[in-house]
């Protein structure tokens, strides 16, 4: 692995500030992975007789409001991207935080649904309460439900060593079937024959950021059509809390210590069991909050749309692509939000199935997980094994080894 420094010619480089250089080298892997995924995705479209340029033009239009051909309103597309981004930020952190402790939370989806269910249940049954009381109540309820869902996996991991990947997968399905039961023939069902719940009370709803006014015209459309809601502020606040928790608190230190080496953490006086349980509880609260905000901000009731919800699975890609940092997660969420938003336009304008987005997402995951880029660079020494190739503290490498095997001794030496 050690690139002999002597062979790399010393080139005069513009002196970048240290932080800028760190950011640039940190971005190399995720950005490269995304580019690689898009290239392979284009080849797949091409191989099946489609036009990749038209497909990506549709994605850009629906995602960022750029290069629209069918007269789509750019502002509306951006608004839609933001709406998709909001839950991804919080669910992404629900995956990223356990990563730091060496835990793999595949259960963000179940925790998301638990949060949505709790929010809806409280929002219906206490629907007459005023907003200052009810709104915190539904959001806290969602967080508590998500925490409970993840806490089950945390307790099982900490006490009997049950692998959290398996328990969280099982809990995902329990949540999905619970949701079906509740809104089809169960206590939350709106009316017989429907597969949706009653709507939550007015006091449980998050306000949209733009005034809900049909007469006020913004970017050529009445402001009431833009659905961006105040959940965006909550999501960004949650990202700040995540970063603060991880880097500025004792608990964050303990989480990272457990992730690096359980044995070392134990000798340092950290209770590994307690840290595992607390980490999962907080992660579940993040994801539960995402579910609650999705109900309170956008949907206002549970529908069969939630049967095929994938927020919690997208969150895994978000956390990996964002390299587990708050800023990275927000950026990755915007990317996946844009892909989700763009997929509809792509299907309508270019006739390419919106499922291409899933293919792209999988390719990004493969690329990051396998570090294909690193492998490609190693094959091409002429391309300069620049510092960015694999810095010793490459977050991607660190994240992957952390996630790979909780028992640190005999952990895979990746190089």
């Amino acid at each position, binding site marked *: 692995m050690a690139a002999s420094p002597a062979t790399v010619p010393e080139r005069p480089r513009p002196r970048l500030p240290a932080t800028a250089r760190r950011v640039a080298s940190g971005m190399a892997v995720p950005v490269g992975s995304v580019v690689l995924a898009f290239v392979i995705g284009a080849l797949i479209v091409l191989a099946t007789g489609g036009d990749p340029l038209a497909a990506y033009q549709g994605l850009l239009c629906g995602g960022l409001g750029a290069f629209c051909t069918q007269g789509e309103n750019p502002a509306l597309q951006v608004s839609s991207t933001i709406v998709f981004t909001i839950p991804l930020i919080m669910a992404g952190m629900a995956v990223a935080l356990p990563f730091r402790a060496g835990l*793999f939370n595949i259960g963000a989806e179940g925790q998301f649904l638990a949060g949505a269910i709790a929010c809806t249940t409280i929002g219906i049954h206490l629907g007459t309460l005023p907003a200052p009381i009810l709104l915190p109540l539904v959001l806290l309820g969602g967080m508590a439900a998500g925490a409970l869902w993840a806490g089950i996996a945390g307790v099982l991991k900490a006490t009997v060593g049950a692998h959290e990947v398996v328990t969280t997968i099982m809990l995902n*399905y329990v949540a999905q079937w619970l949701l079906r039961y509740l809104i089809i023939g169960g206590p939350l069902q709106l009316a017989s024959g429907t597969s949706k719940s009653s709507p939550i009370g007015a006091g449980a709803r998050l306000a949209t950021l733009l005034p809900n006014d049909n007469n006020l015209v913004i970017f050529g459309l009445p402001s009431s059509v833009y659905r961006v809601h105040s959940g965006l502020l909550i999501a960004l606040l949650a990202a700040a809390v995540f970063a603060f928790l991880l880097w500025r608190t004792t608990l964050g230190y303990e989480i990272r210590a457990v992730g690096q080496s359980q044995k070392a953490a134990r000798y340092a006086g950290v209770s590994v069991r307690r840290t595992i349980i607390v980490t999962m509880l907080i992660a579940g609260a993040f994801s539960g909050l995402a579910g609650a905000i999705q109900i309170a901000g956008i949907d206002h009731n549970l529908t069969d749309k939630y049967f095929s919800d994938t927020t919690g*699975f997208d969150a895994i890609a978000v956390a990996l692509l964002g390299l587990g940092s708050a800023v990275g997660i927000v950026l990755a969420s915007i990317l996946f939000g844009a892909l989700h938003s763009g997929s509809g336009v792509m299907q309508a304008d270019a006739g390419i*199935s919106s499922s291409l987005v899933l293919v792209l997402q*999988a390719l990004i995951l493969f690329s990051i997980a396998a570090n294909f880029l690193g492998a490609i660079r190693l094959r091409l020494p002429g391309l300069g094994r620049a510092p960015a190739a694999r810095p010793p503290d490459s977050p991607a490498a660190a994240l992957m080894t952390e996630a790979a095997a909780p028992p640190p001794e005999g952990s*895979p030496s990746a190089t």
Partner: protein
Amino acid sequence: MSVVSEILHLLVTASLWNQVLAAAVLLLLPALGGVISERSGVVNIAMEGMMLTGAFFAVVADLGLHNPWLATLVAMAAGGLMALIHAVVSIRFRADQIVSGIAINIFAAGLTVFLVNRIYGIQDVGHASYSELLPSLNIPVLEQIPFIGHVFFQQNVIVYVALVLLVLVHVVLFRTRLGLRIRAVGEHPQAADTAGINVYAIRYGAVITSGLLSGLAGAFLAIGVSNTFVPNMTDGRGYIALAAMIFGKWTPFGAFVACLIFGLGEAIYANNSIIHVSPYLLSMLPYLLTLIVLAGVVGRSNPPAADGIPYVAGSE
């Protein structure tokens, strides 16, 4: 009539157990694949995606070739190819095997719908005609046995194949040199390597086998139980198979028992019109049972020692 007596009444009908066995086989095939893969030390949560890919290509091939047997081979090859991706990414590139498994599942879900759209233009794939489906096969004489005959000997041909494979996998894993090697590689690859076993070859073979078996299950689902492809038609069966594998403590027969229990849940679900409990609550049972098993209520369930840890030749 109470729910309990309704279910009890249902439990004594032969047709229910006939359905249980068929449902169990649908889970057993990917579960056997999971057992083989994980016994060799490669975590495999990608059965869902491999099965879905198999289901899709089974229908495509059957509609094109009008031959269910060839279509089944195509489905197995498709499942095997998906498994090959998982193998290359997790063995060659030493990626996190869980991330790779998730990526396979997402890839399969996306690619199948994408290809439906490219090939057929619309969401409806079309239906294979009855004569082009994997046939049911009644075993002469034995099918006459009351109750037992209907349960065991009036089944789809894949059911018999799966039961033979069950015994075969058990024998190979625990009674042959190859099986010993697979298990050695999964428990202690360094020691196996020292003894002259090709760790990478065993792991590639095991993962690809899991893809072939999952693809076979996909074919059974799409052109045996059903006659068409619908998006996400595996509906979590690959994950239930994963649960069955753990439930059965990484043994073929243990997994089969788990598949029967989960199959029973599914068969009762299919008969929900005659019992009056929410089918959705029943559907939760396999997952809850697995959680209870994992909680250690029924004894510990431990994976192979080197499961999920990439092997680097020469490492300690």
